[in-house]
């Protein structure tokens, strides 16, 4: 849907009315957000009554930019997964009761969501997950283990993908649930990573009971529902504010360190050029109206991963033997207000950039098949019941 002048005027009028009846200076943040939801300015592209006005999605930015200028609260940052991924999934696949139950609390920041997809045995091959949900009289009984979950420690709900039928091929036996994380049997453990900190969590599910009313979409339709979530994950990555990252840091280090790092000048310049191009490339795609996140996003993903890894390698070379040291490996959980990590931590962290959110290898395969039209990978597990696929 493309944005017309009339759409923009409708949104502008709604924003000004919201600000007029709820002056930012004298309105409690929660009350402001509630009024914003009721005014249809939470997700302008959602239908009226569900926090939206039924307008083009591109107008979301317009709302938040104007409200930011006015000093209004913005609950999205602390609840990004719920705002960007859970909400659109619910809207597309949830029931009216589920919309009413979740959308408003999500926007008010009262209900935070995390994603329970990946498992130790299912990384790139997400459809191979093994967490089992078995029908019981009044709902489902779930057992399994999820991994690489951000914000599980502060979330109330998890987007859970589980296997409800192991006797059909892997994509067809999945079902999607909104799991209340306070349910007995849900255990959240920090997952310590090579930087020493724990940015992610493991979630163990032992005889967890989920009512059928928490199921999103039909039984065995979980893969399609999960795709809706992941499509929105890609837009979320796409719209994340981008800076020159390691290139900017390298440039600063180069300037500070003077004569002894002169030999690194070409690499500093090269990193800066790469960063500039990638930022330009990504912002062009974001601002290109009507462009849905397509396989070309894989170009950004591959590029930024490489830039970060090479860029922080360069930063280590710039600080020289100080790279022999490390700030601290003390275990700490990730928090929004943590201090900026130093380049050695960033260097270690950058190794994940070519793995998380789709490995560079998977991204290359996507580009080769969907952009260049090369033959698809052979799928040996395609028509095989999940229970008979080799795993390990």
């Amino acid at each position, binding site marked *: 849907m493309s944005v017309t002048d009339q759409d923009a005027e409708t949104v502008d009028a709604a924003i000004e009315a919201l600000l007029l009846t709820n002056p930012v200076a004298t309105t409690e943040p929660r009350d402001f957000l509630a009024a914003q939801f009721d005014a249809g300015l939470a997700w302008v592209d959602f239908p009226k009554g569900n926090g939206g006005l039924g307008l083009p999605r591109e107008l979301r930015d317009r709302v938040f930019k104007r409200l930011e200028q006015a000093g209004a609260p913005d609950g999205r940052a602390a609840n990004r997964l719920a705002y960007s991924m859970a909400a659109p999934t619910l809207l597309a696949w949830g029931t009216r009761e589920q919309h009413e139950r979740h959308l408003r609390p999500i926007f008010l920041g009262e209900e935070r969501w995390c994603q329970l997809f990946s498992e130790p045995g299912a990384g790139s091959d997400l459809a191979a997950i093994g967490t089992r949900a078995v029908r019981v009289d009044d709902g489902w009984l779930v057992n399994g283990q999820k991994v690489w979950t951000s914000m599980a420690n502060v979330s109330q709900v998890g987007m859970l993908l589980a296997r409800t039928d192991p006797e059909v091929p892997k994509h067809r036996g999945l079902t999607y649930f909104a799991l209340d994380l306070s349910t007995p049997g849900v255990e959240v453990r920090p997952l310590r990573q090579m930087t020493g900190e724990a940015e992610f969590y493991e979630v163990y599910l032992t005889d967890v009971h989920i009512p059928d009313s928490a199921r999103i979409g039909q039984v065995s339709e979980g893969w399609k529902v999960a795709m809706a979530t992941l499509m929105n994950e890609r837009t979320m990555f796409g719209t994340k504010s981008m800076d020159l990252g390691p290139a900017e840091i390298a440039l600063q280090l180069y300037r500070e360190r003077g004569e002894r790092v002169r030999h690194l*000048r070409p690499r500093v*310049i090269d990193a800066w050029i790469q960063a500039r*191009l990638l930022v330009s490339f990504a912002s062009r795609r974001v601002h290109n109206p009507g462009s849905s996140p397509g396989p070309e996003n894989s170009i950004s993903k591959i590029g930024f991963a490489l830039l970060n890894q090479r860029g922080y390698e360069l930063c280590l070379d710039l600080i020289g033997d100080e790279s022999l040291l490390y700030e601290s490996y003390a275990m700490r959980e990730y928090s929004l207000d943590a201090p900026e990590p130093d380049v050695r931590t960033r260097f270690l962290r950058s190794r994940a950039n070519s793995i998380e959110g789709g490995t560079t290898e998977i991204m290359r395969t996507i580009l*080769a*098949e969907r*952009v260049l039209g090369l033959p698809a*990978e052979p799928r040996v597990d395609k028509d095989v019941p999940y229970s008979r696929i080799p795993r390990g």
Partner: protein
Amino acid sequence: MPTEHEELRQTVRLFLQRQSPEPEVRRLMDDRAGYDAPVWARMAEEIGLQGLAIPEDFGGSGFGYPELGIVFEELGRALLPSPFFTTVALAANALLESGDREAMLDYLPGIASGETIATVAFSEDSGGWDLDAVHARASRSGETWHLNGVKRYVLDAHVADVVLIAARTDAGISLFAVERDAPGMSIEVEASLDQTRKLARITLDQPAARLIGTEGDAGHGLRRTLRLGAVALAAEQLGGAERMLEMTVEYAKQRYQFGRQIGSFQAVKHKLADMLVEVELARCAVTDAIRSIADDTEEIELNASVAKATCSDAYFAVAAGALQLHGGIGFTWEHPAHLYFKRATSDRFLLGTPDFHRDLVGAALGI
């Protein structure tokens, strides 16, 4: 992309498919002139390519780099051997940047109509594309200037009606025009690595020259000309890289080994995906540079250098990858891969190597 741009692209592509198929490219590689005069005339008469970005006051149609960029991209795809690049990207820009309205009136209408082939002689025996590379001397006797020195790597000088020459006077770098067949200017075509581009060595032994612009004041205009030329070259490189990627993807779908299309092997797919990433980032660099020229921003030179460095590396990497993925056939004389590979190689050097341009970017960053 606006519809008119898409139409322009289709028009140029179709024209080049008809007028510059591979056998024709190969014929012209061995041809002394190195271009086809009837095709050159039709480029001007039928689609007005030479005058596309020349202002209407000087006989052109007054479009700009967004349109010109499309033309160069298509020329790069087709590998058309022609003095178009040096006439339009270098000579016309040198005149436009010279501030010499009289010279513009004298030369630009001829360029726009296709009657005049012009080139720029800049680099010398020591090589290089910054102003320090210019050592040729100009001296004045009465109203006439005379030039002395040697110019190298001059594109298509042997067919040029006029050669614009950078030379020094006591006042500094200046630009001069020497007409074809001027006594004292001898032009010798050198054997070039890329046979689709003719390069000449020019010996200047006191030919009479016309001063273009102000004596000693040509440095800025020349530097800008070289950067504008670099953006045009980057667009050509992008076009060549695109073509090589397409050709290789096609081949990977047609070629069978081990009972499979070779494009079904991940080793091949991933290499092609990396080539795609190179091409798309090169496109981004060209688009940014063209936009800054169109908007006349302060970042023209910076973006030009980013584009030249990026596209030089991308084209070379893609051409080398294409050669590799074609296997044995890609190494034969018969297959076109080497034509692109050689173009990609020589384009790295023309108007400044990637390292030269990265150095300029560094200078712009203050390091």
